Every structure is written in structure tokens, then in C-alpha cells.
């Protein structure tokens, strides 16, 4: 299989225009003949449903929770980037493009990133038009702030609830299409399989989470907007219901999975407090604008922070990276924290945390300014830890946050299965090996509001699509496969709960496939994952029945898929003999401990083809060409 990224010709700034013009259109009168299936109601799914519904297609939108408004995107805090240059501080589309390619450590497709930067401008306009209450200055203009890894202010925000406001904007636009009869909502449905007929994606099998019934849905195109796979690490900042199942089942049906080892660890999360913990809470990285990160200079110093004098503190980010200081990109900040903790300088009961201190900012700007900027984050921190960050420094530690890898898509966001499009975090496309802050929201909305409606139309106009009903053999087979898996889980009647298995899997992933990876560790991880997977199928305990609301059964299916997917993630990390972005292999580092890329051998997208559970997948490579931004060693010093 050769991977064709279908990148349009011409200068980078004209590629998207050119593609839009090349694309075939669907006559407005014919659009109602097409049914489009969209799975997931985060920013990508809701905005795509709004856009395609408005064009006049009949959209079926599937939502795992009771309401589309609750999708995982809701919890994004910090903001969304756009190259508006409202601050006159040197921003431009080209600079946002450049920063994103560089921030991604030169493992993203230039053309996609450029389009993302171009569309960023329209996104803000669109959001304001739909009533998103972004923060404003006294004069009534939109406010901006600078956000992790950027030296200028291009981030738009709505208090610490940017994701919520953007999602509610997209949700409302989508519900407007429900109101107009163009979008039909299917809440409490989980997609369990993709149906492929004659090589084209033609439908999905879902489980109705209330009745337990398996349902078949037919359409002419399927859009997966199902988010990332962070919870393969068990503890992450992702929502409880975020999962890899939809993407994984599509992978098993032939969609290639790209760069699964590119996972992002966010430097500023509330540290783990015990085994009972079900998720980790992110403290927005915007806090690093005013907070200073430090640890004691003395090893295992147990004094409370306020008793440690200034000269005995190590502001290690400012020390190591004088020009970016506390604002270095996430991967760099995370590894630096781990390095200090590993060396014995970590703080807190477990030694697995570092301080994020606001004292200096409060003294300089006044407590009211800090309150206006971060109060809801400070309150959240206080709720969880019972400590007051206005008085004592926060304690933070890195946690799994975002996954850059995902299903492989071409420039049109189409996967290797014709008719299967993948949007938002679920695809691999724009962030390379590391995502810059405030750019995931941007990507979700670019994909959904502005890209899919053009490229899906082009597909529909050009494809020959036979009439298919849900009685087709492929639907029956997919439904039977989904049913067999449910039966298999219920049959085990073992002694260990799904959560125990999930936690064990998470430990393996965090210890061996986390912030620092080695060849021997990854080999060990693969063996451990396989053994755990075998145990799972022998000993998992799931109570209750299928024909009822049974969250534990849903959870079991998701963890079963993680058990398979985890192996691919580790394999990908093992094959990539270089360090880049979020993928850090200890064998490949510079003398001062920075990631060392190997552009001669690994400047490609690694896209894996499924060959069976536990068997070696086949690697396909899409070579990356850099015509605009010359790859160099990233330096934030």
C-alpha cells in the first residue's frame, strides 16, 4: 500500500484554495439524498454536524453520553490559538504555521499545518458570531494571552472554560440543525464497529447503552470524531468515557493507525494522591504565564515551601531555558520535572511533584489580578487538595493529556478506507510528535466547521455508492462480531474487576511507555501487556446483564480494546529509534539531555496495518517533506 497524502500542488499558501476549487460539489437539491454518520460530539463532531447539516445533508449524530454538550472537549481550559495578530506583536499565519511545525518536532505534514493556521482566523470569527463569550478588554476588543510555547499573545480564551464555551457554541449550532430537521441525535450510543461494504465505509454498529441492544446504521460516509486514547494509561486528564474503541475497531477493519507512540504528557497536573484515584486533573498551562516552577536545591528537603529561602530554591526551567523559562513546550517541561523528581528533588509526600509558585506574581500584580486570571483554577485546586494556592505554592506533576497519534488520514481527512473520515484528536494529522498549547481546540473546529464539509462533498460526488441496507451481510457480520465480544466478556465471570485490569495496564504504560522509553523497557512492556491481556480474558469480573444500562459492561469492552491497542503503541515506540517531541527514547538524547531526532531515518509518518491481535502489524511509511520550515534541533534555551 502506498500512502498518498493527496496534498494539493502549488505554493503552500494556495494549497487549500486550490483543493477547494478542485473538489467536486454536490448539488444542493441532491444533498438530502445522502446520509452521513458522525460519531462523537466533541468540538470536531458537533461542528461537523452543524456544518454538514446546514449544507443540507441528512446527518445522524451519535453521542456516548446523555447529552452531546458533555463531550470531553468541554473540559479544555486554557484557550484557542488564532493568527489574528490583534496584538501587533509579530504574529501571522506563517508564524503560527512555523511554530506548530517546529513545536511538533518536524513530524507533521506541512500542508495540513498551514491550512490549520489559515483557518484559525475564521474560527474565531465564527465562534464570536455564534455567541461565544470570549474574554474582552475594556475597550470591547477581544483579549489575548500567551500560552505554553509561544512568545506572543495569540490565544483567545473564555475564563478558564474555553473548551466549554467553544463546545457549547458548536453544540448550539448543531442543535439549530436538529431544530431544522437536518441532524438526528442518537444519545447514549456507543459505536462498536465500522461496516465496510465493497471497500467503502457504509455504516456502523452501535450499542444502545440504555437497552443494551445492538443497532445498525447505514450511511454514505462515516466521520469518526471520537477523540484521543489517553486513558490507555489509566490515569490521564481525559474524561472517564474517552476511549479508543471506535478508532481501534476501524483499524481492525483496515484503517491504518499512525504514530500511536506520539503521546503528550502535560506538565501541570495535580499529582496522584492514591490508588483510588480515577482521573488526574489538569491545571491549565496558562498558569505558567505567572507561576514559577521550582524545587528545593537540597535533595529530599522536607521543609514546607515557605521555609525554604530564595537562594535554596532551584527554578530549574528558568535556569535551563533562560529565553523561554517557565513557558517551554510541554514535553520539555514534563521531562524536566521528571528529571528533578528522579534525582530526588521532588516535593510532597510521594516526592512526585514540583512547586508552581504564584507568590512573586501576586506581589507584583496584586491578588485581584491573579484572581481575575485564574480564580476558577485555584478553586478547583483547593477543592481537590484542600490547599490554598493563594497562600502555598501549588504542587504539580506531569500526566498523560493528549494523543497526537491517531487514525491515518490524507489531506482530505479521509482514512485508508474510502468514505471513512477522521476528525479532531482521533486523527494523527496536525501536531506531529508534540502539540502546542491551545491548538487542539483549533484543530477540532477547523476539521469540523471548515474542512469536512468540502472534502466529504467531494467524496460523495465522486464515489459510486451502491444501495446498501442494514440487512447486508457486512452489517450482520459486524453486529455478530460485536455481540460475540460482549458474550465473551460476560462469560468469563472471573475475580478481578475491569478497573483493576485497567489500573494494571496503566502502570505498565506509565512505567515503560511513558515519559522516557528504552528498548529493553518497551520489550518488557509488550510481554507484560500480552500477559495481562490473557489474564483479562481468563479472570475479568463483570456483573449485571447486557439488556440493561450497565456501565461496567461498557467499560469492559473499552478496556479489552485498550489491551490490544497498548501493544501497538509500545511497538511503535520500539520501532522509532529516535527521540522527538513527546516520544523520548533514553538511548537517543543529546549530552545535555534533550531529545535527539534522526531525520535521516525517521522523518516519516509511521502508519500501521492490522494483521491480527498479538501478531506483528505491517508498517507503512509516509515520507515527510519539509519545503518551508527547515528541520533543526529545537532549542528553547
Amino acid at each position, binding site marked *: 500500500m502506498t500512502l498518498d497524502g493527496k496534498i494539493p500542488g502549488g505554493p503552500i499558501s494556495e494549497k487549500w484554495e486550490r483543493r477547494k476549487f478542485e473538489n467536486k460539489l454536490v448539488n444542493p437539491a441532491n444533498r438530502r439524498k445522502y446520509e452521513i454518520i458522525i460519531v462523537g460530539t466533541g468540538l470536531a463532531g458537533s461542528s461537523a454536524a452543524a456544518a454538514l447539516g446546514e449544507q443540507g445533508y441528512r446527518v445522524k449524530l451519535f453521542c456516548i453520553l446523555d447529552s452531546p454538550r458533555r463531550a*470531553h472537549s468541554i473540559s479544555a481550559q486554557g484557550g484557542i490559538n488564532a493568527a*489574528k495578530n490583534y496584538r501587533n506583536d509579530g504574529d501571522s499565519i506563517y508564524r503560527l504555521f512555523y511554530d506548530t511545525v517546529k513545536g511538533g518536532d518536524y513530524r507533521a505534514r506541512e500542508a495540513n499545518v498551514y491550512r490549520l493556521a489559515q483557518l484559525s482566523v475564521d474560527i474565531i*470569527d465564527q465562534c464570536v458570531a455564534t*455567541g461565544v463569550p470570549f474574554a*474582552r478588554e475594556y475597550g470591547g476588543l477581544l483579549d489575548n494571552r500567551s500560552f505554553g510555547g509561544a512568545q506572543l499573545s495569540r490565544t483567545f480564551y473564555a475564563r478558564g472554560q474555553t473548551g466549554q464555551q467553544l463546545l457549547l457554541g458548536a453544540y448550539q449550532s448543531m442543535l*439549530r440543525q436538529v431544530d431544522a430537521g437536518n441532524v438526528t441525535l442518537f444519545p447514549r450510543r456507543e459505536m462498536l464497529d465500522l461496516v465496510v461494504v465493497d471497500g467503502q465505509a457504509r455504516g456502523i454498529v452501535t450499542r444502545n447503552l440504555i437497552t443494551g441492544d445492538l443497532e445498525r446504521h447505514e450511511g454514505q460516509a462515516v466521520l469518526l470524531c471520537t477523540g484521543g486514547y489517553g486513558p490507555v494509561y489509566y490515569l490521564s486528564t481525559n474524561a*472517564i468515557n474517552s476511549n479508543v474503541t471506535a478508532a481501534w475497531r476501524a483499524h481492525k477493519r483496515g484503517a491504518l493507525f499512525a504514530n500511536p507512540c506520539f503521546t503528550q504528557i502535560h506538565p501541570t497536573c495535580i499529582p496522584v494522591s*492514591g490508588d483510588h484515584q480515577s482521573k488526574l486533573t489538569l491545571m491549565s498551562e496558562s498558569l505558567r504565564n505567572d507561576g514559577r516552577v521550582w524545587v528545593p536545591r537540597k535533595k529530599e528537603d522536607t521543609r514546607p515551601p515557605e521555609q525554604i529561602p530564595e537562594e535554596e530554591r532551584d527554578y530549574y526551567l528558568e535556569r535551563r531555558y533562560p529565553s523561554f523559562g517557565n513557558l517551554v513546550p510541554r514535553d520539555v517541561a514534563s521531562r524536566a520535572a521528571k528529571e528533578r523528581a528522579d534525582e530526588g528533588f521532588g516535593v510532597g509526600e510521594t516526592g512526585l511533584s514540583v512547586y508552581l509558585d504564584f507568590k512573586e506574581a501576586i506581589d507584583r500584580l496584586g491578588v485581584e489580578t491573579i484572581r481575575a486570571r485564574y480564580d476558577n483554577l485555584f478553586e478547583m485546586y483547593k477543592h481537590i487538595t484542600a490547599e490554598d494556592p493563594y497562600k502555598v505554592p501549588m504542587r504539580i506533576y506531569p500526566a498523560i493529556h493528549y494523543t497526537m497519534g491517531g487514525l491515518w488520514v490524507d489531506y482530505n481527512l479521509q482514512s485508508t478506507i474510502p468514505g471513512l473520515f477522521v476528525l479532531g484528536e482521533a486523527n494523527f494529522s496536525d501536531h506531529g510528535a508534540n502539540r502546542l498549547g491551545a491548538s487542539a481546540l483549533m484543530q477540532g473546529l477547523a476539521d469540523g466547521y471548515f474542512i469536512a464539509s468540502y472534502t466529504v462533498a467531494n467524496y460523495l460526488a465522486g464515489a459510486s455508492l451502491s444501495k446498501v441496507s442494514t440487512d447486508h451481510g457486512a452489517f450482520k457480520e459486524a453486529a455478530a462480531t460485536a455481540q460475540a465480544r460482549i458474550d465473551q466478556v460476560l462469560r468469563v465471570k472471573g475475580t478481578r474487576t475491569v478497573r483493576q485490569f485497567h489500573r494494571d495496564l496503566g502502570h505498565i504504560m506509565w512505567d515503560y511507555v511513558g515519559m522516557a522509553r528504552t528498548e529493553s523497557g518497551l520489550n518488557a512492556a509488550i510481554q507484560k501487556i500480552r500477559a495481562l491481556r490473557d489474564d483479562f480474558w481468563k479472570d475479568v469480573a463483570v456483573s449485571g446483564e447486557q439488556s440493561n*444500562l450497565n456501565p461496567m459492561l461498557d467499560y469492559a469492552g473499552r478496556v479489552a480494546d485498550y489491551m490490544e491497542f497498548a501493544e501497538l503503541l509500545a511497538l511503535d515506540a520500539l520501532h522509532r529509534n529516535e527521540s522527538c517531541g513527546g516520544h523520548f527514547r533514553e538511548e537517543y538524547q543529546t549530552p545535555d539531555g534533550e531529545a535527539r531526532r534522526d531525520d535521516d531515518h525517521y522523518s516519516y509518518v509511521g502508519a500501521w496495518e492490522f494483521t491480527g491481535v498479538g501478531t506483528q502489524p505491517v508498517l507503512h511509511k509516509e515520507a515527510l517533506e519539509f519545503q518551508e520550515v527547515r528541520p533543526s534541533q529545537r532549542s528553547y534555551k
Partner: protein
Amino acid sequence: MPAKTITVNLKVWRQPAKDQPGRMVDYVAKDISTDMSFLEMLDVVNEDLIRKGEDAIAFDSDCREGICGACGCVINGIPHGPDAGATTCQLHMRRFTDGQTITVEPWRAKSFPVLKDLTVDRSAFDRIIASGGYISAGIGGAQDANSILIPRSIAEEAMDSAACIGCGACVAACKNAAAHLFTGAKITHLALLPQGAPERALRVVRMVGQMEAEGFGACSNEGECEAVCPKLIPISNIAKLVREYTRAWWRGTT
């Protein structure tokens, strides 16, 4: 604050499915770390039930950080429990004492039928928003975001209302099971913004009509909704709803 371990006695509403009778069932939750969240405590109880082959307690949650609005139960008679301005997932066990009895029930309202145990159907809220709770701006072609100035105070006020997470605690707290705070918050958010102005009148009329059609009750101004709102959305949003409705009436939109 170092964590302690406590034991609590739970009385939990168990109901096998919609339209089936339910009852309170007793459970003892042992060795609960005071660092746990309330939902993590329920996770622990569920682990025990599953190991015994019993059906786990069904409850909704997703973000577990107070923003998605998925979680919510009535804890000792109060929606989302004793902490003001917090959701059930943000409630921590350090708020309870060793040996304390805790009752846990689902939202109770005619328009939120119980699906199982603590899980209810809140799709009525989506239908209210779908009845005009949006701005009719097509995708693409929006003018530059800075071309309409919005005073900071107005943007902030709109954000205060837009902060609603749609959890339904306001309905659960109201003896009439009214949805005025939820509906009023969206009406206020959109009516404050210049972009929302053209559809103001029709929006309020349609949303209020849908709210009534869903069977939510009348507002009798007791303020229980405001007291339990995890986002501290004030009942001035209800006053705004009423004003907007009256304004629409004067203009003949009703």
C-alpha cells in the same frame, strides 16, 4: 492536609430500570480515604459489588472535574451534596465524618425520568436548547471578530450565565421541578450579546414553550435552584427570562 480513612453508611436508591419500582438499599463503605472524591467512593463500593457478582450502582460521570455536568445525585437531601458551588464529582470525602450515614438519590423530577439507580434522562434540556437556544449564524462568512465591540462588563455578564453546565441540579432542588434557572441562563447569555439580539423575542418564546411542553413546573421564586447551582448562577437569570418574555409579549411575538 494528610488523608485519613473513614467508614460511611450509605443508603442508595436502587431501581433496576425505567418504570420499575425502586428502593433504598444499605451499603457500608469501608476504608475510604478522605482524599477520595464522592464518585471515587462509589467506585470502591461498586468494585466490591462486582466482586460479589452483584449489579453495580449505575451513575453518570465523565469529566470528574465539575465542567461536563454529567454527574449529579442528591446527597443527604441536597443536590450535589453539602459543598456550595461544587458538583458531585468535586465533593470530597473529607467533608464527611467517620460513621456518618449518607443517603444518595437520583434527581427527582417528572421531566427527568430515572433510567436506572442514580442515572436519569435529561434530554429535555437538549430539546429546550434546540428550540431557539442558539444564534442563527451560518458556518463561514462571519465578519471579523473585532468588528462588533462588546464592553467587557457585558462579556463578563454573558459568561456568568454561559457557565451553566446543564447538570439539572436546579430542577432537582425545586419543589415544582422548574427549569427556569437553566433556561434563563441561556436566554440571558444570548440576549446580552449583540449577536443574539435579532432573535431575542422569538428565542424566549420558543424556549419557554418547550420548557412547559417538557412538563417542567412553574417558578415560585424560592431560590432553591440558585442555592445548589454548582456554577453559582444567580436567580437574576430568571428575572431576566421573565423580562425577556414580557418584552416579547409587548412586541406581539407570543
